[in-house]
């Protein structure tokens, strides 16, 4: 599903990723970990082509990411859902509208949008709050909305950049379970975190980065 071959990436001549190669199979759940500044976010950004890379090859769902030009990027990104540490919900919309927005963007059929958005909220246990605004929810609840939004278009790949970074341990493990649920439904998950608790709790493959290089891998079948 995701293949990297000898990938290099630098920001203004400062290397951020150095000679990264790995393969993530379809349906896998992989943690990306490492200290701050190790390059976790950068690695994820390459996968959905938010950043370009200097050398090597990146294949995502069979798409050669490096060869894609701006006007075709959406074709890659429609296979991918992304969740961030800061949720990135739109404050002016209710949470149902926030989830529906992702459906509108990809031109989903109008009649189905409300129902699909509601169902996605139900899957994260928030359908009863559908008319609430993001500011009226706790951090954990907001993150669940963000997950519902990332999953509502049934992406093949779910990327998460420190989704539990702002949450207490209980909430973190609840969020982790939502990702594992999505993974159980067949979604390939790449989950960046530096939380040892999360890494310990989820018994998954790990790619550990250190100063832009792969320092260690733990592959669990």
């Amino acid at each position, binding site marked *: 599903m995701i293949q990297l071959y000898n990938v290099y990436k630098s920001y203004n001549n400062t290397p951020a990723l150095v000679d990264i190669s790995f393969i993530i199979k379809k349906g896998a759940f992989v943690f990306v970990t490492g200290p701050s500044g190790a390059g976790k976010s950068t690695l994820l950004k390459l996968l*959905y082509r*938010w*950043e*370009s890379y200097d050398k090597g090859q990146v294949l995502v769902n069979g798409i050669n990411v490096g060869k894609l*030009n*701006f*006007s075709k*990027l*959406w*074709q*890659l*990104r*429609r296979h*991918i859902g*992304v969740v961030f540490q800061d949720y*990135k919900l*739109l404050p002016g919309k209710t949470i149902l509208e926030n989830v529906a*927005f*992702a459906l*509108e*963007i*990809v*031109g989903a059929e109008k009649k189905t949008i409300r129902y699909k958005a509601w169902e996605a909220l139900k899957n994260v246990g928030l359908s009863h709050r559908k008319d609430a605004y993001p500011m009226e929810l706790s951090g954990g609840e907001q993150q669940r909305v963000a997950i519902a939004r990332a999953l509502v*278009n049934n992406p093949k790949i779910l990327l998460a950049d420190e989704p539990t970074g702002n949450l207490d341990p209980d909430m973190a493990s609840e969020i982790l379970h939502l990702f594992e649920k999505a993974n159980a439904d067949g979604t390939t998950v790449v989950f960046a975190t530096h939380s040892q608790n999360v890494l310990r709790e989820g018994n998954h493959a790990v790619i550990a980065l250190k100063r832009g290089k792969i320092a260690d891998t733990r592959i669990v079948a």
Partner: protein
Amino acid sequence: MNILKTTLSNIKSNKQLFFASVGTITTALSILGLFLFVYINLNSVLSFWNDQVQLIVYLDDEISSDEKKQLEKLFSSSSEVDSFRFVSREQAWEKFQLMFSEKSSFLKGMGFNPLPASYNLKIKPLPERLKSIQSLAEKLSQEGGVESVEYGEEWINRFETFMILMRVFLLALGALLCLGAVLIIANTVKLSVLSRKNEIELMLLTGATPGFIKFPFFLEGIFHGILGALISLSLMKGVHLYLVSRFQGSIETFGRGMDFQFIPMSFVMVIMLTSLLMGWLGSYLSLQQFLGAYKKL
């Protein structure tokens, strides 16, 4: 439907800016339109007088028929002369009386005809017409039996030069104002885009097509342009109607059948189309600039 909502809420959230932008476009187009209006009317005056340009050869009362024949031969052989017409003393007198019928009792009281016979020459509308009229007039005044020669004044020539200058000025002013309007629209749309940065990033992230992202902003820019054009065109129409109601009487003294011309329909279409293009271009520029940061190729 949704896109229209987005556009409208963009405008609502930047109300002051929207009015400033539309107001400036309106002003720019109105200034341009006013000049166009003046130009078109001067032009119609010019072409009216152009048709009137003729050379009148007044004849001595004692002109012989040989001299007359000689003159007519000269007219026919002159390449500038389109046609000529003989007006006898009696015809001139009748026409004169007709034109001043209110004073006819006084005229009748005069008891004799003071008017000379004449030849009215219609001159071909050649580019160097005025010069050829001048030389022709000189030549004719030397001929026997000719009392005097009258022709269109020098100022017609000056007027034509003025119109050419005006055309150049209009084009330059128009280009400048259009450029200004495009920049203003670009700036307004840019602020609109920036205020929706998070939303646009989400769209990019979720896999919206560039067209989907850009469309509401194009609509916004085009809306600014068209609205400005509509307002300024209605202002101009208002001015036109006012002038007609106020001065139609006095303009007719310049020439029968003359009236104030509104900007012709084709120009109205051009103005609308231009404003649409300006709106599109303004949006295009700001979108290009904004989205460029996300391309990083």
